[in-house]
């Protein structure tokens, strides 16, 4: 009993038996079927899976943008019913406010809280510095590169002091070099702020490089196939032998339901 309550207290985010069914005309499509997952404070968790496995849907339910058809998601034992400033989403297509400058985008969250102007400026400058965009503070999103836009989006949610950073294929639209440097920056930010991160991706390498745990999801209907802790020492090196081993393991789990026969033949 004591152990159970201790565990419950430690549980930062718990996803309990979440099912999501979408109504498409006369058809109903089950996007998620009884998904159970708990995530501890400060963890970096990647959700990975082929498209249609419901990983983005799960992230959107955690964000509060969608309601689960059944089941519930609790943050600190409070059921999530809608979007809130305790969770911050970073979208693949940035979703910056195009009419606001970089500075105004980052200060948007603090401004909603009605803080003193001096304090808002302080937070904004700190986060501009964190993502290295001081020189671009007065530019509009349209005048930035994709990598810069995503830095602004990350700074915007962190400036809002969210506890849970939700990232929906955030680096998917970026070129390889920008992606690599943003991955490193994200890890540095995560290590410094100890924010909890749920990161959706379809790149196995990205998942293994970044996360403490990789949650493998499969489609039709979307469910959790495996929950793999990544115990590689940080900083990780993508070309290392043990890194490749882990990558191969996860790739196998990811594709086992897609092509079971071929894998059996190999074994």
């Amino acid at each position, binding site marked *: 009993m004591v152990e159970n309550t201790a565990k419950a207290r430690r549980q930062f985010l718990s996803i309990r038996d979440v099912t999501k069914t979408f109504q498409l005309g006369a058809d109903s499509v089950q996007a998620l079927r009884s998904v159970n997952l708990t995530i501890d404070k400060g963890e970096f968790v990647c959700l990975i899976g082929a498209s249609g496995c419901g990983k983005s849907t799960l992230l959107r339910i955690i964000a509060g*943008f969608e309601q689960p058809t059944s089941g519930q998601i609790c943050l600190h034992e409070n059921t999530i019913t809608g979007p809130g400033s305790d969770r911050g989403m970073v979208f693949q297509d940035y979703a910056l*406010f195009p*009419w606001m400058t970089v500075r105004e985008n980052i200060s948007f969250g603090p401004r909603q809280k009605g803080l003193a102007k001096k304090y808002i400026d302080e937070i904004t400058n700190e986060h501009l510095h964190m993502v290295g965009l001081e020189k671009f503070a007065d530019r509009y999103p*349209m005048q930035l590169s994709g990598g810069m836009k995503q830095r602004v989006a990350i700074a915007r949610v962190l400036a809002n002091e969210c506890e849970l950073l939700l990232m929906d294929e955030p680096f998917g639209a970026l070129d390889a070099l920008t992606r690599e440097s943003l991955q490193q920056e994200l890890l540095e930010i995560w290590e410094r702020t100890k924010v909890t991160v749920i990161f959706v991706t379809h790149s196995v390498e990205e998942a293994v490089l970044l996360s403490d745990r990789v949650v493998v999801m499969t489609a039709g209907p979307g469910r959790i196939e495996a929950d793999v802790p990544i115990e590689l020492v940080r900083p990780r090196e993508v070309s290392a032998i043990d890194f490749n081993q882990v990558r191969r393991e996860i790739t196998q789990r990811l594709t086992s339901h897609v092509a079971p026969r071929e894998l059996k033949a190999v074994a």
Partner: protein
Amino acid sequence: MENAPVSTVSPEAPAVASKPWLPERVQSVLLAVAFPVLLVVLWHQLVVMTGTKLVPKPYQVGTMMWDFAFGGIHDDAFSGTILTHLFASMQRVYGGFALAIVIGIPLGLLIGKVKIIRQLLDPTLSLLRPIPVTAWLPLSMIFFGLGPRSAVFLVFLGAFYPILLNTIFGVRSVDPRLFEAASMLGCDGSRMFRQVVLPAAMPGIFNGLRLAHGFAWILIVVGEMTGVPTGLGSVIMDGRTLSRTDMVITGMIIIGIAGFLTDRIIVCINNWMLRWSPQHHG
């Protein structure tokens, strides 16, 4: 010294590539002026060739405009009265236009964003919309009498729909992720409308404003034909009754110029407010 190598490398190459015969700006102004001048010459020639007495020559209209502005030529009831009529019309145009903005934009934002309000109002508004504004003329004369208020009402009706529809369209075409982003950052309720919905819909709203402003000038003429003593519409109407075609054309030209200048002002405001999006510049 830093420039020296650059200038020696390419002294002629770019000059050969594209040497405009005139600076771009001068050329565009010249071309813009050339066409109306050509039309005036054509007008003059056609009047002379046909020998009509019903249409004045351009210079007669020019004389009329001078007299309308400064007096001293015809010395009749219209001499030197341009400002009276222009201001009267402008007051009604901008009055009706402002009323349409004040009602159309908030209503458009609500209809665009709030489903229940859309379900409540959209069908009715869609039913009323196809009714030509001029068809409201008899009713508006009953509601507001024969005075200028009737004209303001018509201008309002004409400007209202373009503003409303473009505002709704502006809201509906915003990436829904922006609203999601705002709500996760703690923005909701009326703050959401002021800080996110309104600025996001601005490109659509400005489309509506420019269209509506055009309609406003169209309808002022109709509105002022209902027996208002002042205004450019009444000048045109009086010119018609008195068979003073030069006066009719004078009124038309002044409305054209006033409408053009106001449109330029709207474009300037548009470009400033939408400075974050060069693709929406007019």
